[in-house]
């Protein structure tokens, strides 16, 4: 339950939501705006706390933690991927990916170690060659991949993707969803995807639909889409669709 107080009004953004998500699931959360899915995502992302009720992450109740403790949870257990990428400008892909390590209060990493891990993580998303590029030298899809690498670097329990394909064209959307699927299938990483596009939601294994602060549907996705196969079936991209980092934005 999450209640906001706005002046005299009481806004019940979430009215009794009970869910269990097992490790390794790929959960797609959909619903119209105002359905409570954003509030749900904020609570799952430890950015917000429920007014009442519990949120147990990795066997630990995080719903009663202090602000600083929540920051620690976000750092080590949750990887965020946003619609707008939210990369630091004029900062290389490598430095962007390293950023969560700087705030890691549990493990202190030496510069060389941070560098090595960031390079490895960039390799996972297929951007190992472009580690020294600034965000404005990368295409939207590449920027989102950097953001995914940043979400991955602290080895989180869950990756929380909020409309990750909202700013991307169809082809790049499929590419990005392919990365999520690969991480989910090959590495067993739990993914929670918030989207209002049904076709994007179908890349997951489980669909949860919100309406008016309640879960109105919670079902297994019968015909899961496979991004890798779809991508192989697409005609190869025209050359001008791939921006060349070295010639762009100088």
């Amino acid at each position: 339950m999450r209640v906001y107080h706005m002046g005299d009004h009481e806004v019940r953004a979430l009215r009794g939501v009970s869910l269990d998500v097992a490790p390794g699931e790929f959960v797609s959360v959909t619903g119209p705006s105002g359905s409570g899915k954003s509030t749900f995502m904020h609570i799952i992302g430890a950015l917000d706390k429920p007014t009442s009720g519990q949120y147990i992450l990795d066997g630990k109740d995080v719903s009663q933690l202090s602000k600083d403790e929540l920051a620690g949870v976000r750092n080590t257990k949750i990887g965020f991927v946003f619609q707008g990428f939210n990369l630091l400008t004029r900062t290389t892909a490598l430095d962007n990916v390293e950023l969560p390590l700087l705030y890691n209060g549990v493990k202190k990493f030496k510069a060389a170690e941070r560098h090595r891990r960031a390079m490895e993580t960039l390799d996972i998303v297929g951007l190992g060659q472009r580690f020294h590029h600034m965000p404005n030298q990368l295409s939207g899809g590449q920027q989102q991949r950097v953001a995914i690498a940043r979400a991955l670097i602290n080895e989180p329990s869950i990756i929380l993707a909020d409309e990750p394909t909202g700013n991307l064209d169809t082809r790049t959307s499929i590419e990005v969803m392919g990365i999520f699927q690969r991480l989910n299938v090959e590495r067993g990483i739990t993914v929670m995807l918030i989207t209002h596009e049904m076709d994007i939601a179908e890349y997951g294994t489980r669909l949860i639909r919100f309406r008016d602060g309640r879960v109105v549907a919670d079902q297994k996705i019968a015909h899961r889409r496979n991004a890798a196969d779809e991508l192989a079936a697409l005609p190869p991209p025209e050359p001008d669709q791939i921006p060349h980092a070295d010639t762009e934005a100088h």
Partner: protein
Amino acid sequence: MSVLMVFRIALKALGRNKMRTALTMLGMIIGVGAVITMVALGTGAQNAIEEQIRATGTNTITVMSGNFTQGAVRMGEGSSSRLMAADAEALRSVPGVQWVAEGASTRQTLVAGNQNWQASIQGTNVDWPLIRAWPLKYGLFFTEQDVQAAAKVIVLGSNVAEMLYGAEVDPTGQNVRVRNHVFRIVGVFASKGASSGGQNQDDQAFVPYTTVQKKIQGIQHLNNITVSAVSGDQIAATTEAVKASMRVTQRLAPGEEDTFRVFTQDDIIGFATSQSSTMTDLLAGIAAVSLMVGGIGIMNIMLVSVTERTREIGLRMAIGARGRDVLMQFLVEAIVISLVGGGLGIAMGFGLAETVKWLNGWPAVIPMDSVVMAVGFAAFVGIFFGFYPARKASGLDPIEALRFE
């Protein structure tokens, strides 16, 4: 998060916007630079004055006759005629005293041939050139016998000699007339320049004080006594001893007011430098205003920066930055700007001070404490003006911040 990490993050953030960082620093650079330059020029002027006064000897003590009251009329300083040769004689045996010169002065016209020149005539004794460390250019100073005999001998200041006889002429052995007395010139002093009071020390002539008393003025008393202490370090103790001796020879009962006044070279320095130090303070004060403006500039930019970087702050919080991490980042950014700006400002201050010194020939001395103060002030400005924007940044709600357009 470690301090090193905070610095790394802050430096990277500053590096991302070099132009803005540089412009913000400029306010600090100019502020600190102005303070250092102003203080340097002020201190330079002060030191020059002090040096000038010290050149006359730091270990001299002057005893002046005090004021006296006749009826209900209080006469001015030096009007008393109670200062006598006996007082001076007693001072010769005071511990710590090296030389003692009786002083009786007057102003007279000197006539030589068809030239005349009005100058101050200083009656003194043979210790005078020793006290003032004043070498002679021609001839010799008068002797003890001359003083005892109240002889009509005279030593000219270099300006007086020049006025009467022309430059680079040795007038020793010649005669000058003062009133209706004929004085034999025995020596001419080397040029010494203006005194701390601004009067030209070369525009004087020296005769035995006894001669002034008996032959020129017809008086019994002295105007002043100049004493030199054995060392400048013991000037305070010697001054006290001189006062004590004076009270005995003036026969003053305990509690009775002094009939004389004693002051040291330090008193004169203190007076002269107090004026220039007021000037220095004023200049530094004006410069400090620009430092203040520089600080407000930092706060301005930091506030704009917090708004502009709201999403960045939201992102940092989403990936695990705590409120205090963000606070520290912005605070360190402000401190780095002000400290680096302060450092460059010091360099600019040194450069400007040297330039002014070189262009105008003004003395410029940069006191170390002004540098330390400037750095301290720069750090203070950074913390003070950086705290509010940093606080604002750290208080942001990550959800709101991430949504910010």
